[in-house]
């Protein structure tokens, strides 16, 4: 029984990491319809930029915010200089981000080398806490809380603010929204920067658990894609649900069917696609 509860807790923690990984992608995809394939690059750049600040300033929280901000700035440049010129050409926008995957992952390899980076959790969240007779790393609980906080923030933004209603209106009918006098270009830029910020922030926050190196850009992208295929896009609840399901399936799969562990999340994805192609809580895009 205790091993089951530890497995479930592991699954929830892994699910929250998945949520943090996927949230940056899903913000941009769900709120403005652009599938940002450079998301994996944003994620690792956040981690690397954060590491610089961590080395010089020492503060973990400051480093995470700096990682997010640096990637957000990069997102601002990419959106203003490139993506906004490809107005309404969704396929070209997606393919453009693919070009940036090649460019930035190569630059990262150039600057920081191919080695994996992993750091210790910050002092305030290191150590373990006892659960029954077992003990559990405290940082995983911090991750769970952090994921919930990000989810709550994005949910409030989307459902309770004026910006959120503009976003939802823009996803339903962009022309009509623009016709009503909304500066949708500005909104799109803000969304892209926000998504980039969340992606970079998650990259550093996850660093004590997920080692980062230039080779994982497509793995990060793939995990995010599986999560949003299962959970659906357009609503943050969907992404949260998707990451919880994939996290639990993966963790329980590893415990009970180790030989198929690698494929359980794909199987879940395929079943969802066959049963409900829009994802569990998704809206058609």
């Amino acid at each position, binding site marked *: 029984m205790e091993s089951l509860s530890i497995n479930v807790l592991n699954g929830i923690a892994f699910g929250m990491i998945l949520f943090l990984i996927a949230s940056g992608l899903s913000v941009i995809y769900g709120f403005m319809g652009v599938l940002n394939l450079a998301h994996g690059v944003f994620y690792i750049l956040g981690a690397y930029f954060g590491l610089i600040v961590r080395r010089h300033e020492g503060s973990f929280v400051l480093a995470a915010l700096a990682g997010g901000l640096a990637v957000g700035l990069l997102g601002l440049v990419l959106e203003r200089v490139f993506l906004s010129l490809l107005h309404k050409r969704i*396929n070209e926008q997606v*393919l*453009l981000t693919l*070009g940036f995957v*090649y460019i930035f992952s190569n630059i990262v390899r150039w600057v920081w080398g191919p080695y994996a980076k992993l750091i210790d959790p910050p002092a305030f969240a290191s150590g373990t806490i006892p659960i029954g007779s077992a003990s559990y790393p405290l940082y995983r609980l911090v991750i769970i809380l952090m994921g919930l906080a990000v989810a709550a923030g994005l949910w409030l933004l989307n459902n309770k603010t004026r910006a959120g209603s503009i976003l939802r209106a823009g996803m339903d009918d962009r022309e009509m929204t623009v016709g009503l006098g909304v500066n949708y270009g500005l909104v799109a830029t803000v969304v892209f920067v926000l998504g980039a910020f969340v992606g970079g922030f998650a990259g550093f926050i996850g660093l004590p658990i997920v080692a980062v190196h230039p080779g994982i850009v*497509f793995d990060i992208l793939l995990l995010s*894609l599986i999560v949003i295929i299962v959970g659906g896009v357009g609503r943050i609840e969907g992404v949260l649900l998707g990451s919880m399901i994939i996290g639990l399936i993966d963790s329980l799969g590893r415990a009970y069917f180790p030989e198929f562990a*690698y494929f359980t999340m794909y199987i879940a994805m*395929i079943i969802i696609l066959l049963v409900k192609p*829009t994802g569990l809580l998704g809206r058609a895009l």
Partner: protein
Amino acid sequence: MNPETTSWDRPPGRLRYVAWVPVALFFLFVPLFLPVYLQGILTKALIFAVFATSLNLLAGYTGLFSLGHAAFFGLAAYTSSILVVHYGLKSFWLVAPAGVFMAVLFACMFGFIALRVSGTNFFLVTLALGELLYSVAIKWKSMTGGTNGLVNTSAPNLGLSWLPVDPPFFYYLVLGVSAMSLLCLYFVTRSPLGVALQGIRESEPRMRALGYNTWLFKYLAFIIASAFAGVAGVLFAYHSRVLVPMHLGVTTSTLVMLMVIIGSDRVFLGPAVGAMVIILLEHPSSLYTPERWPLILGSIFVIAVMFLRGGISSFLEKTWEKAFYASAKR
């Protein structure tokens, strides 16, 4: 749809095909006088020309941008090499169809799953399905050799003892198969099926309203495209001699998408030109700055998407037609 980019509805002017004569002569005779490694590069370029053109049946003609097309390429390559290495089958006539058959079989399954979604979601579902095969290739070490790769150094055995087995022979085999594959794909795009696919790209609801079973057409396009990716894959297995899981994965899928976009997804031979350009650029880069190749590739990609809207070959085609019609008027 911008009318000037639909290049397949040009008024007939048989003489303008004269541009193809030097191209055909080049591919038929020049490689005989080239050193072996340059012959190898041309061989690889031809293989990727078929691969990229097969993807364009989906991307350019049907509007389904697949980021998992290498799955079928790699699957066919692995299948044929596994049959040679692990089962001792030597005959090209057995191994090659088996590889293509495997690609078609998986295309039937993956196409069914991937066509459940449309629009931008198609990107992500095809990418994820391709990565599924990639991870199988990594994990199934007894068959695929895992990340160490699967080595198959045998030359294709056509069962014709009088044929020499040297690099020029392989070049001409690839040339023949590629030419036939491109011809088949060309007829597909000109057939009623191909025209219907273009209709689906322009407006699927309208095609449905006209009574077309658009799902079936897209499914067929997916399977045909995968079959020809399989043909390219089988040839690639013999050319490369080492297969690694990367050949099934997103790296290869995005590379071939790059060829399509750079060459032009609006001209039939555009992707083939894109493949030639990329493969020819890859060679000097691998000599001088192998580490920076992805950076160059990514920059070319960004430039192609941002500035070369129609791709290289629609630029070439327009220039040629302008020159041709200008000289014809005189």
